[in-house]
């Protein structure tokens, strides 16, 4: 332990603690701007400076470590003055149109001004040049950027993509791709992780709200909404609740109150995805064991940020991807065929809106592969954050809504679908189904959880032996199935390198583009709470465990879907509607016929 004094108070903390942590553990808050625990800890803004006795200069408390006998003052006149000046410099060239800014009231810069007690502006700087880059999923407005570099850290260090970096120097510095190319033309995965950490309105999702209001106002459209698993454990945070609060019932009521004609659940399609993907996996294993051609490991394909990433970074490995569309795309294809028939409505009169924790889905719905009969499978995507904004705009008192249930038939789901929103969840859901199909017995793990695959580590793996399979799966007897799970693109790179070198020991890999899975997707509520992932994870596990049915293939509405419409899994109708192919892009889009960028 190290003994020191902060603001006259004697304290003792473990070695290696930063001054900021030491202070906060003892009830002293130090103002900060760029610091984000576990994500951005490099001290670029210096707002957190404190006075350390004996040190000539003020110290950035988010990086300076405690030392024995240190005497720290966090709020001396010198410190307060320095912070104010730093703040004034930051805002001197900021486009300060708070009244017309979407981040007003949820802006860390605005909040900091209040904390520091800043009342007037000392420096009149020229506002930074306005450069609005509106890609299909991400909108970047450099006139709002305060160069805190959180996005740079997340894109380079955590996601390992490295699309954006500071370019130029001094007042000309901008956070941009090389040659200031637009995001749509470079290898951005559209994961949106940068939009979650941006403290101001410089990075956000590209607006989908207008389109949805228009559809809701159009009397000739039947507007169908579906919501992803991760939304239900996060949306309540936007209304002041603790992270991980499960608010499924209120969410459904809010969507109804907004005027959607059908309130369905992406989970229903997640169950369907498991049946399709599980069947595809068994097909590949069978082909491989019988000496045929089969590409293994098979890799999941439900995360569109991951898909765009692999198309850019490993264009030669696309055959490893499952051909399954992501659940909401499967849903859209069926809403405009199976469901349209059921309700006797022309597919072109159905407007499908997905509420997603994800920004990359905004890109995905624009892919030419994601159409059937000339109609896009899904018409609009809004993020969890955008849905909260719509609920506020409509004057709905979310926290006081009664709970209600999803509509049938595309609203019923099993527990396996809930965990789709969580790293390891798709794999676990698939194994629950595959194992039982093959052996006729339940997956032999306590409470159906494949424990090594649960948790937030970057790469996780598990293996188990197939024993005593059913007659038709005799060829699998004794096979040790090896699976791996990763979330975040850095982990994906690691597993793909292994595949490239021919060293991958796995049969099946799950990849989610965002660290932790969809629970911390690029469209989720922003939070500076480092435990937010754990809390949302627990929320989803609770949802799963509370379900009556917890295995996708037992979903009665999926069984009837096959009976009434699709025939059998991986059949010709499935292939037409539910499966897709991928586009080699290359880091510089060099494999696209129409080359964009450099």
């Amino acid at each position, binding site marked *: 332990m190290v003994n020191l004094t902060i603001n006259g108070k004697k304290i003792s903390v473990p070695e290696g603690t930063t001054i900021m942590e030491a202070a906060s553990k003892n009830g002293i808050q130090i103002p900060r701007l760029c610091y984000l625990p576990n994500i951005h800890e490099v001290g670029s803004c210096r707002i957190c400076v404190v006075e350390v006795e004996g040190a000539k200069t003020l110290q950035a408390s988010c990086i300076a470590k405690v030392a024995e006998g240190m005497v720290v003052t966090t709020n001396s006149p010198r410190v307060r003055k320095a912070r104010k000046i730093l703040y004034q410099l930051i805002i001197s060239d900021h486009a300060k149109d708070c009244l017309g800014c979407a981040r007003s009231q949820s802006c860390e810069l605005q909040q900091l001004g209040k904390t520091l007690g800043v009342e007037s502006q000392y420096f009149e700087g020229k506002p930074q040049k306005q450069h609005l880059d509106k890609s299909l999923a991400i909108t970047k407005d450099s006139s709002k950027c305060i160069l805190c570099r959180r996005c740079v850290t997340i894109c380079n260090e955590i996601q390992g993509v490295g*699309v954006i*970096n*500071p*370019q130029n*120097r001094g007042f000309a510095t901008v956070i941009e791709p*090389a040659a200031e190319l637009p995001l749509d033309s470079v290898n951005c995965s559209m994961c949106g992780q940068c939009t979650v950490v941006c403290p101001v309105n410089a990075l956000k999702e590209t607006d989908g709200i207008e389109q949805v209001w228009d559809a809701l106002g159009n009397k000739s459209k039947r507007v169908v909404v579906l919501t992803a698993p991760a939304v239900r454990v996060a949306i309540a945070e936007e209304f002041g609740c603790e992270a991980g609060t499960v608010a499924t019932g209120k969410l459904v009521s809010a969507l109804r109150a907004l005027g959607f004609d059908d309130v369905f659940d992406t989970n229903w399609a997640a169950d369907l995805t498991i049946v399709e993907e599980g069947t595809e996996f068994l097909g590949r294993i069978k082909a491989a064991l019988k000496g045929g051609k089969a590409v293994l490991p098979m890799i999941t394909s439900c995360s569109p940020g991951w898909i765009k990433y692999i198309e850019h970074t490993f264009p030669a490995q696309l055959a490893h991807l499952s051909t399954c569309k992501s659940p909401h795309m499967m849903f859209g294809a069926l809403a405009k065929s199976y469901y349209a028939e059921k309700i006797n409505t022309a597919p072109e009169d159905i407007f499908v809106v997905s509420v997603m924790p994800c920004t990359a889905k905004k890109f995905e719905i624009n892919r030419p592969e994601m159409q059937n009969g000339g109609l896009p499978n899904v018409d609009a995507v809004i993020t969890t954050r955008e849905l909260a904004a719509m609920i506020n705009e409509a004057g709905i008192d979310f926290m006081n809504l009664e709970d209600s249930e999803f509509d049938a038939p595309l609203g019923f789901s099993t527990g396996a679908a809930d965990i789709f929103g969580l790293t390891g969840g798709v794999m676990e859901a698939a194994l629950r189904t595959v194992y039982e199909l093959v052996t006729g017995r339940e997956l032999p793990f306590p409470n159906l959880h494949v424990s090594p695959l649960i948790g937030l580590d970057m790469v996780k793996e598990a293996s188990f032996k197939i024993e005593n399979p059913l007659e038709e799966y005799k060829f699998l007897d004794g096979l040790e199935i090896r699976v791996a799970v990763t979330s975040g693109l850095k982990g994906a790179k690691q597993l793909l390198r292994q595949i490239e070198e021919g060293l991958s020991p796995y049969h099946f890999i799950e990849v989610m583009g965002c660290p932790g899975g969809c629970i911390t997707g690029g469209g989720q509520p922003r939070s500076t709470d480092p435990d937010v992932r754990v809390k949302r994870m627990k929320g989803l596990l609770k949802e799963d465990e509370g379900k009556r049915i917890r295995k996708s293939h037992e979903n009665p509405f999926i069984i009837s879907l096959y009976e009434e419409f699709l025939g059998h899994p991986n059949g010709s109708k499935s292939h037409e509607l539910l499966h897709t192919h991928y586009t080699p892009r290359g880091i*510089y889009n060099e494999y696209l016929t129409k080359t964009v960028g*450099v």
Partner: protein
Amino acid sequence: MGEKIVKYPDSLTEEERHKYEQIANIIDLYRDKEGNLIQILHLAQQVYGYMPIELQRFIAEQLDKSLSEVSGVVTFYSFFSTKPRGKHTLRVCLGTACYVRGGKKLVEHLQKVLNVELGGTTEDRRFTFEVARCIGACGLAPTIMIDDEVYKQVTIQKLDAILAKYAN
């Protein structure tokens, strides 16, 4: 990891290809050194003369770095240039003394005869035309610099003779 396969951009002239090969060797030499990027870029610019985006891309690929990181470094340091530079750097002092005592005229004249704007490089890549910082020779204004050579009390008449010295 095995040897990195060197992939050169398509459509390089023989001379360019030769330079790229040299740069590939530089990269090979410095690949495993900590903080190597600036050094490699520096040497690459010496070989190539400037840092076009294609060359940045080549270096990024060889080092397994992202292009935006490399271009971030190139655009940060003023000694890197993304446009081709002339064989010689011609700088006119625009300190107040030089400016009023003929510097302005020199700039206008040079723009005409060299057919290039300040900051640009002549068609034949002979000169890159820039502004010089005051070199403290205000008493002998106007001054110009070509590479490391300082010329004082330059007139338009003298200028043509000076330029002729750099004809090849």
